[in-house]
């Protein structure tokens, strides 16, 4: 397993510094005891509306992708970025597959605990030139490009 971090659309292997992790439940029970924690683990059945804590105090939020079929954390990642304004690292943990990296990145994930090879991961990230819909990344949707082109013509 390696840690890949996203920077300007490319994935780079990153040094794995040990994270001081705490689960949302443990942190809620006893925040003092976990005052040193830098990474918050949020399970994928947690409603973010109920989290009600200062997310900005954590440099990393870890989301779970327990199996390729379980897509809840895609919504959680978008909400963290778009609704709760979280700007730290969002890390994908679990069954992180090459062919899902792009979707995760579009939803706001920018760090991946990944078992495959880095070149393959980067190839997968660049398989599509456009996207039809806006998401948590800064990719302009196709309809925006169409408008821009029409305006330029």
């Amino acid at each position, binding site marked *: 397993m390696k840690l890949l971090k996203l920077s300007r659309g490319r994935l780079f292997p990153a040094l794995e510094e040990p994270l001081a992790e705490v689960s949302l439940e443990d942190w809620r029970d006893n925040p003092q005891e976990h005052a040193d924690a830098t990474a918050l683990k949020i399970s994928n059945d947690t409603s973010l509306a109920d989290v009600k804590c200062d997310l900005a105090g954590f440099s990393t939020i870890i989301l779970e992708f327990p199996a390729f*079929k379980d897509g809840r954390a895609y919504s959680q990642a978008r909400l963290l970025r778009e609704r709760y304004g979280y700007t730290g690292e969002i890390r994908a943990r679990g069954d992180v597959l090459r*062919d899902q990296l792009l*979707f995760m990145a579009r*939803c706001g994930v920018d760090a991946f605990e990944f078992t495959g090879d880095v070149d393959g991961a980067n190839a997968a990230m660049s398989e599509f030139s456009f996207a039809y819909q806006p998401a948590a990344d800064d990719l302009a949707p196709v309809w925006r490009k169409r*408008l821009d082109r029409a305006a330029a013509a």
Partner: protein
Amino acid sequence: MYRYDEFDATLVAERVSQFRGQVERRLAGDLTEDQFKPLRLMNGLYLQLHAYMLRVAVPYGAMSSKQMRRLGEVARKYDRGYGHFTTRQNIQYNWPALVDVPDLLDDLADVEMHAIQTSGNCIRNVTSDQYAGATAEEVEDPRPYCEMIRQWSTFHPEFSFLPRKFKIAITAAEHDRAAVKVHDIGLRLYKNDEGEIGFEVIVGGGLGRTPYVGHTIRKFLPKKYLLSYLEAILRVYNLEGRRDNMYKARIKILVNAEGIEKFAEMVEAEWAQIKDSGIDLPREEMERINAYFAPPAFEKLPDQSEALEEKRASDKDFARWLRLNTVGHKTPGYAIVNISLKPIGGVPGDISDVQMEAVADIAQAYSLDEVRATHEQNLVLPHVKKDDLYAVYSDLEKADLATANIGLVSDIIACPGLDYCSLANARSIPIAQRISERFADIDAQEELGELKIKISGCINACGHHHVGHIGILGVDKKGEEFYQVTLGGSGAEDASLGEIAGRGLSSEQVVDAVEKLVGVYREHRQDKERFLDTYRRLGAEPFKEALYEAA
């Protein structure tokens, strides 16, 4: 019709390259079948009983003659010379070799077609009224909205791993030919009391092992908010839908567990947060897409065609085909033509390569280049001049495509069943064939009137048996095929779920059973009542009695 611009074309081409790479990794052994499965399932490729099956998307059932011709060529080049139109207006090929599939997809991409999101737990091909843009019944053409949804849902990064598959249907006519009340989301375009056109949003309908008729969660949604509202529904579903049991994972289960009011509140609360956040298309883009569906250049014609009336008077079979297979067009002098893919004793929905090419030629010559697939597994030529109807009929007859039986007892929906499908418990196709043969007499069929028989080979209900006037469900009883009969279902605007008539019947008994049911109807019907109306008026008892008396 919508045409790809460079963005659409690039995305489809890139999808084919991506899939080609995935197939190469599989064939090289870099991916196990288990690892490959989720990837191929994102692209409509199923492993069935005997071979791979590829499901090709026909977005909202609309095809050009060029596309139809290519579908025929593909059937010949990569398959065994036929294809199968499905209840989602798509086409399936039953015998492609895995190694050929990327080339097959390239051939489709050439004519702006693909297999994207025809399987997997994602938003599937949006379906609609096969008469869209041709019928006077609609308040507006629903196809532009289907296309907007197609684009928005394609490779949606958040909604590609939903709890379960997700199906959306749109109608814009009072008479619902898109079965919107039995979809995950059904959208009905209509004009409200203020004269504005918008969507009624219906959620949580569906068939399968837990059938439900959908509920309206919003009476009126302005058109410009279509995509943000859908995004709100999908987000609530993605986060809250059950994932512990695949049989309880569809949105209908969530809607019914929460209660419709609570569910509607959840959606509205989510929507309030995102409705003006840039998800919806700007007016210019809606207009750009709308423009592709502007009415074609219809000629100014008298509504009556003398040539047609002469032939109608002199050719009895043609007159019957006119009565049964054509319907009114919004433009004077034009008609909508249905092509039945249910010849007596045939496989519902199957069509040969040569027939597909014949349909393409006819559409090119006589239907302004357009063909539609219907969810009842037939085809439609939407824009035929009445003056040309006899020529169309003659050409269809030469291609063995002039069966006159639309809506009648032999116009049966059937899933592929145990002849192909690895999920099936029983065969569907032979039952459809035998019922069709039993009722072969076309005079008798016409005299019976509208009667919708729908057959599924297992509880997943791909043959829509729950909404058949007569539904037939194949079940496995200790290794033997049995069939359960349901009565009184409808997938139209008067949607209802059929009720189980009683114990299962053997495959020998089931055809007799249909005949007995029809006998009860014949005996009791009043005036022009359909089978369904008689059933609803009398209730199940007389039908059950006939089915199980001394049996």
